[in-house]
């Protein structure tokens, strides 16, 4: 026990003296979590909360152009700037010059085209129902479509969101005109108020989050980034811990410890203990940041609705996995360069395939299969279960089983190597 306490004290002294190592262990993850959450949150808000800056040039001689503008305004997704004096040849240039993300040019015959198309459709329908005997007499003309330009820096998903939004509004406008045309063909002056009311109240979608119970936790950048980058930081301790082991061995301390009975195993356990405390402090620091600092700076708060006991025990296992991996790398590496290089690259690869940066469901099938070998994937899976799905012990069984197996293999490999080198 005295040997263990002395070794723990020594490890703490060494750690506290290693300013760069401490920065790597605590400041780097804080910055990572903060910066990446802010960046992702902004992107999230551009798509979901912010309004698209939109330039409209309305040259329509009828009313449909104005109706379209009105609907775009009502949707709440757009910040409109209307410059009807802009020439078509200058439209693209003006959009970019005024830093609009999108521009819509409504041509002169936009209303005529829509009305023509609606009249054709309504006559065709009435003819099909046998309500009129004549063949449709109107022909649709769409020789001047709605022209949309966008800022070239925009990402594909934002462009897609805009196009979908615009298509929905246009379809609504088109339907309204078709309906009006239909009623007109049947000699109604306008659509009856009751029908108009029913149409406007139709909604066939009810959205909710798939989860175990009814405690709603909305997925957001915080719920992903805080656990994800905490896991990354824990596993990145391979730089400090792995390097520490190589340094001690190459400096000759291991040989000296070998000559003192039981000292070596005390040194191994002390490293596990001290870095275990480090990992738990990392978790505490980053989760506290998500919980208390993020709301102050306008980021979504980290919501922890799951069982606190499950969270603590799973965190302990995740920390132990990270330590076991770092010790295994440190034991097998011959130099600090090897330990740092292999350690860092392997963690980055594990993080990439494990869904720390982008969710695994967007990856190809073979990459999703590959993710299963990453301990970071299973740590994240466990935290997702606790943070987003409100899962219980049964749901944690798979990640717990994997992490226990992974840690045991790392520890076993480490002990075999130390035994082979006669240190234990």
């Amino acid at each position: 026990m005295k040997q263990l306490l002395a070794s723990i004290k020594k490890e703490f002294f060494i750690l506290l003296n290693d300013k760069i190592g401490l920065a790597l262990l605590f400041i780097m993850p804080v910055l990572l979590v903060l910066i990446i959450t802010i960046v992702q949150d902004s992107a999230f808000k551009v798509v979901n909360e912010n309004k698209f800056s939109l330039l409209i040039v309305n040259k329509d001689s009828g009313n449909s152009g104005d109706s379209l503008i009105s609907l775009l305004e009502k949707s709440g997704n757009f910040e409109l700037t209307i410059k009807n004096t802009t020439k078509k040849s200058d439209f693209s240039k003006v959009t970019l010059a005024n830093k609009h993300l999108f521009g819509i040019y409504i041509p002169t015959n936009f209303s005529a085209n829509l009305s023509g198309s609606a009249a054709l459709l309504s006559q065709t329908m009435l003819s099909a129902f046998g309500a009129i005997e004549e063949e449709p007499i109107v022909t649709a003309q769409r020789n001047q479509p709605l022209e949309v330009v966008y800022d070239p820096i925009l990402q594909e998903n934002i462009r897609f969101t805009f196009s979908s939004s615009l298509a929905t509004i246009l379809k609504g406008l088109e339907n309204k005109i078709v309906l009006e045309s239909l009623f007109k063909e049947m000699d109604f002056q306008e659509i009856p108020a009751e029908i108009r009311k029913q149409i406007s109240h139709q909604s066939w979608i009810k959205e909710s989050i798939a989860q175990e119970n009814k405690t709603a936790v909305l997925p957001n950048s915080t719920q992903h980034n805080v656990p994800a980058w905490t896991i990354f930081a824990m596993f990145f301790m391979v730089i400090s811990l792995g390097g520490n082991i190589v340094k001690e061995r190459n400096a000759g301390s291991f040989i000296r410890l070998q000559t003192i009975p039981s000292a070596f195993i005390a040194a191994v356990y002390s490293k596990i203990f001290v870095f275990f405390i480090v990992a738990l402090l990392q978790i505490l620091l980053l989760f506290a940041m998500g919980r208390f600092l993020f709301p102050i700076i306008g980021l979504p708060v980290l919501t922890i609705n799951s069982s606190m006991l499950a969270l603590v025990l799973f965190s302990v296992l995740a920390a132990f996995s990270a330590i076991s991996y770092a010790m295994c790398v440190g034991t097998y590496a011959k130099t600090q360069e090897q330990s740092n290089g292999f350690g860092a690259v392997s963690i980055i690869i594990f993080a990439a395939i494990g869904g720390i940066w982008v969710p695994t469901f967007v990856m190809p099938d073979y990459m999703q299969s590959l993710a299963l070998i990453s301990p970071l994937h299973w740590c994240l899976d466990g935290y997702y279960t606790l943070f987003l799905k409100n899962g219980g012990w049964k749901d944690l069984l798979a990640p717990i089983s994997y992490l226990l197996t992974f840690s045991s293999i790392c520890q076993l490999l480490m002990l075999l190597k130390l035994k082979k080198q006669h240190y234990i």
Partner: protein
Amino acid sequence: MEAPNKSVIIEITNLLKKYPKSEVNSLNNIDFCVFKGEKVGLFGPNGAGKTTFISLLCALFEPSKGTIKFTLNNQHFNPKAFRKHIGFVPQEFAFYEELTAYQNLSYFGALCEIPSDILKEKINTLLSKLGLSHVKNAKLTTFSGGMKRRINLAIGLLNDPEILFLDEPTVGVDIQSKTAIFSLLNELNSQGKTIVYTSHHLKEAEDFCNRIALIDTGSIIACDTLENLLIENNVLDLEQLLLTLTGNQLRD
């Protein structure tokens, strides 16, 4: 081999050591004894097998063949138990440069399970004898090469060992540090401590050792007092003796 009239601490018989991936034996059919209270030097070219031999003497690992007996005060010890009675000073600076001299000595002393009050006194005595009391709270990163060598030695002496193994204890040190180191080693030897020593500084070895073993290609090729070896081989000093018995061929 001339055996001093002293009791045997380590007795090696027909020892052979072969590493798993090596095609040749690192040590071959070695018979050797370490006697209580002697200062024995192990010398030989690079790759001769000195490090393997000293590791076996320190009971760090077991031989492939042969036996090693550890005996102290007529009591036999198994290798693990024997390690409590040895002090090992490796060629490398086997300590933590980020810590102070006092923190390093406290740590290694605690590993040897020395009671804290005794340890404190022992640390102060060793630091004083090695001229390091004034820097006991300084980090070892600030120490000169000579000061680091002295700390390396002090750590090996913390457990008051019966037998002290020194691997190149004076590499890169100035004459002042060397004098302090040998002064302390001679003092310890006069108190009955046994010293096993390896070095490439043959002149200092001539003055220090009272028995010499020359190792080459995994075998002990000569072992006696320096005086006897010089007469037997008709050479003037240890350097000539080594060249005569091991040749001029480069060994690296």
